[in-house]
């Protein structure tokens, strides 16, 4: 498992991106999906996931839906209209950041 610190700041972007691809998801599903997509390389900690989800909800980027599944209530998160717009911005920001990091870590010197 890679260092958690490296992706901590990108947690909101990861959540938004996942919700862009899947109509609605619940907390546990998000942790499992990240684990599956990264083949266990990245693991979202529960203590970080829910605060991030609640923050996104408070900012109006996520909407919630609740249904009874088996013998318990399940809370699903989905993108709002402003959430979809923000996803595009955040992804562009992330790509920019990755490019900059690439230049820093792997600089190409030219004469």
């Amino acid at each position: 498992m890679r260092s958690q610190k490296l992706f901590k700041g990108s947690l909101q972007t990861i959540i938004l991106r996942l919700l862009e691809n899947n109509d609605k998801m619940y907390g546990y599903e998000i942790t499992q999906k990240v684990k599956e997509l990264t083949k266990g390389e990245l693991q979202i900690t529960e203590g970080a996931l829910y605060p991030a989800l609640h923050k996104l909800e408070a900012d109006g980027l996520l909407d919630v839906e609740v249904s009874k599944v088996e013998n318990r209530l399940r809370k699903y998160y989905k993108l709002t209209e402003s959430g979809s717009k923000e996803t595009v911005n955040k992804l562009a920001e992330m790509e920019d950041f990755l490019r900059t990091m690439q230049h820093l870590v792997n600089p190409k010197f030219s004469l």
Partner: protein
Amino acid sequence: MKLTESQIDELFKFTRKHYVYHYDVQSELVDHLANDIEEIWVSQPHLSFQEACEKSFKKFGIFGFMDVIEAKQKQMSKRYRNIMWRFFKEWFTLPKVTTTIILFLSILFFLKIQFSEYILLGTLFVFVVFDFINQFRNRKTQKQKKEKIFLLETMIGETKGGFTGVAVINLFNFVNLSDINFSSLEIHWCIIVSLTATLFCVLFCVIHYIIPQKAEELLEETYPEYKLAKSL
């Protein structure tokens, strides 16, 4: 292996034991723990329910559910402020703005009457005492009645109580204010005092009466699970 109804109840107790007192936060955590326990049982079927539960809880880190509670409180405070602002604004748009203007003018004229400060102080005192008695009665009945308490519900009640508390503390400041003879003040000072008093009254009315009266409606609007949870 799936969790039974009684194990789900155990998980609710487990969250309460770890300082999660509100149903909206509890239910989300219970679903998470339940999913994780079921997943743990796939790879380690020999683990007991308690062991699997502790194992799942450890994944939340050393602060346990604290970060989740804190984030939820922040989210709900924001929501409450928005609700408060929504109802506060109503008093400055038609048709309610007429009531606000009448209130403002009444306070303004009232201040011009001699000994108005004593009448004001007396009214406030009587009001605060009655409110205290009322809140004490309500709290008693509420404690007996409710099991599933939502965070926003607590916030509505606590802010209401907090406002009375602030009024009580400031009662002594109002006593000091009674040294001022309002009726001899210049008109611009009277306008400032009346305006402040009007804003205070509107805010008081919103926090104290309007929001608690519409609590049920607001809870349904905020929590999609509200009706569902009540029927369980």
